[in-house]
């Protein structure tokens, strides 16, 4: 298992390298540059600026320089937020995104499994139909609709929660963003769990367990749900990576200092280093969570073994 993990980690390095290379050159193809403004800079001033940020060097040299710094963990200065380095922006923003994303993931997993299991056990009852209907609504309603509605209802009309803003210390500010992030995931997970549980309940080993006269609690909890977890876990991997690296919409609507907006802000402002930094961080998260999914598989499904 340890050997497998190490091999997987090693194979992630070329993957990230390819992603970094593609992104580096792709963003340079976009017209314009970080210092293009509605009012142009004097050509001489522009030249000074480009020299200060090494943008005057040939592209391949800039690329090698970027790789060199990246290996040392330096993501470079931000072009559009000049008082910060990209590392500092992530140091400030990532904890916020991870906190919100983590809570949303936890809530989505717990409620998704409970609702999915209930729906499966009460298959085709009114409760099942209700849960499936709500889940469908949750999947199809985009978060740019849910977020302002929640803010308007709880923040403005009822006035029980802040309509926006952020505090590291006050959980009241976390509630609405977490609900917005979790809702569509609750829906997806509930549907996945329901489907897998329905199938698992008909599986041979579950039927055998029932035939042995094991209590329903053990049949469902240990045997059926465990098998039903497989599709959920493989869904949770990429979802976790996405949730923990922030959401543009949720952060913009609620005004949160996470990292989700940096990719869009960076791309629009042609902030090369910020875009690159975001891509690297997201790539690392995706690689890590895909690995975790595979390891969880081995633990959940006795047939899967890595040597």
């Amino acid at each position, binding site marked *: 298992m340890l050997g497998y993990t190490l091999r997987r980690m090693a194979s992630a390095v070329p993957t990230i390298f390819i992603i970094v290379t593609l992104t580096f050159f792709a963003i340079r193809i976009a017209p314009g540059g970080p210092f293009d403004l509605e009012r142009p800079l004097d050509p001489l001033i522009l030249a000074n600026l480009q020299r200060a940020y090494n943008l005057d060097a040939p592209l391949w040299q800039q690329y090698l320089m970027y790789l060199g710094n990246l290996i040392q963990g330096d993501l470079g200065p931000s072009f559009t937020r000049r008082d910060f380095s990209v590392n500092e922006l992530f140091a400030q923003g990532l904890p916020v995104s991870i906190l919100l994303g983590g809570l949303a993931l936890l809530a989505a997993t717990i409620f998704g499994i409970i609702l999915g299991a209930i729906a499966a056990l009460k298959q085709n009852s009114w409760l099942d139909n209700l849960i499936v209907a709500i889940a469908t609504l949750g999947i199809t309603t985009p978060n740019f609709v849910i977020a302002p509605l929640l803010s308007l209802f709880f923040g403005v009309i009822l*006035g029980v929660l802040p*309509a926006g803003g952020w505090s590291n210390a006050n959980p*009241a500010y976390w509630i609405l963003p977490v609900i917005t992030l979790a809702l569509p995931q609750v829906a997806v997970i509930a549907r996945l769990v329901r489907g897998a549980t329905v199938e698992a309940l008909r599986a041979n080993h579950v039927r055998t367990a029932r035939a042995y006269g094991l209590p329903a609690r053990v049949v469902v909890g240990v045997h059926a749900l465990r098998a039903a977890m497989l599709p959920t876990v493989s869904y949770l991997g990429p979802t976790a990576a996405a949730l923990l690296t922030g959401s543009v919409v949720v952060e913009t609507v609620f005004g949160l200092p996470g990292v989700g907006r940096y990719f869009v802000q960076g791309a629009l402002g042609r902030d090369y280093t910020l875009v690159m930094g975001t891509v690297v961080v997201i790539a690392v998260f995706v690689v890590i969570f895909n690995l975790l999914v595979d390891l969880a598989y081995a633990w959940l499904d006795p047939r899967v073994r890595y040597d």
Partner: protein
Amino acid sequence: MTMRDLLAASALSLVLGAGAVSAEVVMNRGNDTDPATLDPHHTQTVSESRVLKDLFDGLVIQSAKGEAIPGIAESWDLSEDGTVYTFHLRDAKWSNGDPVTAGDFSFAYHRIVDPMTAAGYASNLFAIKNAEAIASGKMPVDQLGVRVIDDKTLEITLNSPTPYFIELLTHQAALPLHQKSVEEFGDQFTRPENFVTNGAYKLESFTPNSQLVMVKNPEYYNADQVTIDRVNWIPFEDRSACMRRFEAGEVQTCTDVPAEQMDYVKANLADSLRIAPYLGTYYLPVKGAEGSPLKDARVRKAISMAIDRDFIAEEVWAGTMLPSYKLVPPGIANYDGDAVTVDYADEDLFDREDDAKALLEEAGVAPGSLTVELRYNTGENHKNTMAAIADMLTNIGINARLNEVEGTTYFNYLREDGPFDMARAGWVGDYNDPQNFLMLYESGVAFNYSRWSNADYDAALDKAATTMDLGERAEILAGAEQTLLDDQAIIPILAYSSRALVAANVEGYEDNLMDAHATRWLSLN
């Protein structure tokens, strides 16, 4: 008691428990976006100027009404020939207790024009002797026309008389810097722990995409008149988000209102809505290829006559812009806008269309024979404006085609003499003077998108630049604008207005042309 009341009560008891006597006055102010930096020499935008003018006082500052009033300079003298200003500084201190000296201004002005600083707005100080040559690397920095006479006296020599120079000094490019801390900390000098400021506030923290927190500067010379102890500047890329937090009572001022929600705002937040003329013009430069009917002033005039500005202002912009026929916006200083006339402005639209058709016929443009391309940059309201104009042009037998271009390259194309028929452009003044608008149509200026060139116009602007008498100068400039509008190389359609939400308990917020509302003038009831 709601949950928020509970939270507030517990927070209050914490403060009281810590032994605070009087409650701190906190104001949350919306801003359009975060500053790209707090180094004034690398800032470009209005959002940055709002923040910087709370942190710094220049020689001259803007009053609650947006007028230039003495700041760190208590008074100033101007030489007979209008080229040498001598500023007399008041006793003022930086936030670390150091005195504010003439040297701090001299240091900042030398730094901003230094080509190594690569400051985008160095051009704002080009009125100062040799500034332009220094910024373009043709002269050493020490040749700048700024001289420290003593700690309390600063002498600035200009290239030529510049009647709007005092206005220029209200811009963030003219703020002083604390020399010691800038030199000691280099590019880290704007960090909260290093940042030394001389304005009403000092920086406490800056969290990107969240808030920029300022606290009252106890060393400020007018500290006893500053009533708000703490300002949180909150960036809102989403204007509706600011409005929601405003309605929830969490934010006391918003710098903008979503145009698509104007009906709701007018119905529900009418008392908080502030719409005021703003120093900007929304206009259509007309160019046309060589030999195109657009090169005929009669055709351009006909097009201008057919455009219903009231409709565009009211329907497309929901009353957030004002109809306009002139380049120089109303209410500007050092000008007499009424002296400039556009004869068809007050005519009925149907009569105007008939006159326009007659003009086209006179110019030999048969109905349906002319097709113009309307070029604009991506933006919902720009698109709707141009679509409305295209529709209006069909009323006088001119076909129009829309051409939308992505934002970042749009203005580069116009500046670099790219061919186009008619485009849309906007200009927001950097300083309150007609020169800042009329220079757009001088020969050889990159912003002269039409590449219109008129010797009388250029001569009038040159003459105005050396005319000391402000009344006489206003007359010359108005004459120039008349020349420009008679030839209609530009079709102005709207004047900008500022639109803000201001809570009922905010005092001292006065609508003004500069949209300048420094926190030091405000108080909370």
